């Protein structure tokens, strides 16, 4: 399944492009679509984690109660996190 890519011949595709394993969406790098990029100001961030549930693409990983850097492979740059942040710690910069 994971061998299927943009050079795969029609004869080697699965029936109806069905996918027989879970969590393959993570292989699809939707971050390529981004035209604006969220940037965190570590000084202003209070680690309230409000941005985490707001992110529609689950692109803000959390470890030991603290948020880590954005998952830029999948962040589409929608800006919801920046709007949700109560401390103005996230800003959107132009481009990737």
């Amino acid at each position, binding site marked *: 399944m994971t061998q299927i890519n*943009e050079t*795969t*011949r*029609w*004869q080697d*595709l699965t*029936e*109806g*492009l*069905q*996918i*027989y*394993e*879970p969590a*393959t969406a993570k292989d699809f790098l939707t971050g390529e679509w981004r035209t604006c990029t969220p940037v965190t100001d570590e000084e202003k961030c209070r680690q309230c984690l409000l941005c985490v549930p707001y992110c529609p693409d689950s692109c803000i990983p959390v470890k030991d109660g603290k948020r880590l850097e954005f998952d830029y492979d999948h962040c589409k740059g929608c800006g919801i996190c920046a709007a949700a942040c109560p401390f103005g710690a996230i800003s959107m910069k132009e481009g990737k």
Partner: protein
Amino acid sequence: MAVKERMSGNEAVAFAMKQINPDVMPAFPITPSTELPQFVSSYIANGEMDTEFIPVESEHSAMSAAIGAEAAGARTMTATSSAGLALMWEMLYVAASNRLPIALAVVNRALSGPLNINCEHSDSMGARDSGWIQIYAEDNQEVYDNFIQAYRIAEHKDVMLPIMICQDGFIISHGVSNIELLEEADVRNFVGAYEPAHYLFKEGESMAVGPYAVSAYGMEAKRAQAEAMKNARQVILDVAEEYKKISGREYGFYEAYRLSDADYAIVAIGSVCGTIKDAVDALREKGIKAGLLKVRVFRPFPGKELADALGHCRAAAVMDRCEGFSANGGPLAAELSAALFQAKSRMEVVNIVYGLNGRDFTVDDAEKLYQDLARLSEHGNQETEAYRYIGLRD
């Protein structure tokens, strides 16, 4: 041991459904196919079937539920006609492209307008490019036999495509005639259990059905789907051969009736073929070499085989119970003409539109058409329009 009975086409298909006893039937009633979910519901209520019947709010929902059930791994069927089939349109393509072998009993009826409940092939002909296999019947016996063969064709591992089993509304669906039924055990043994390689409820496997494809994959996906339709050709013939062993009845892509030495042929689909056979017999008595080519399988289209079967004829009339509004004749005429061209045929061909909105086509109409073909082959195409109606007031 075969059982002799008297049944309408709808009763015959419902009986086949009972004998096969599929897992799921989502359906919404529409004339003239209403009896199918009705009979199945009665069978279920009487404990004669254990199919899960899903009453839905529309045909779009019926096909959507059928897609969900089939993807989950359940053998699924539904039934519809006319506007009901039109409302399924979007989902027909989804069923076919996701390679879900659903069986759909189509009872052919005109599409509006004018609003009309009678026989026409415009509904299923409109869906001819949706990726479904289409098999048509001349009478109640054939539609019963076709339905029993349906899952064997659709579920074959080289095919995995949905299938429409079509019968003419009212003429077949409500006309009662003699029929020979198979024993239930023989039907179940013939159809067998549905064991797909992948399905949503399969234990130990996660699966996604119908994912989005970017343009780097979509074209290859269509090509693979087209291959399945090509594969259906051989499977249809193989299943027919096996069916002959339990039923004694022979099926193929077409039936050639007194065609092998015919000078003049009519090519047609459905119940009208019974009428045409009477005309052929009458003309043969008078020494006119008339023959009939009855098309049973329309998808996959057996173009080469049909062209070969007509190869020796001097003239042919291709009959469509459907006005395709192409201004050039109906779909059977268009596709068969293309096949004849590929076969380098020089035959005179006329495109006939007949039987719209349930208009009768009589033995007399067929006899006159054969006489037209005889004149045409002698004098060329000047006297007869290549695309015309029969049974029209003009």
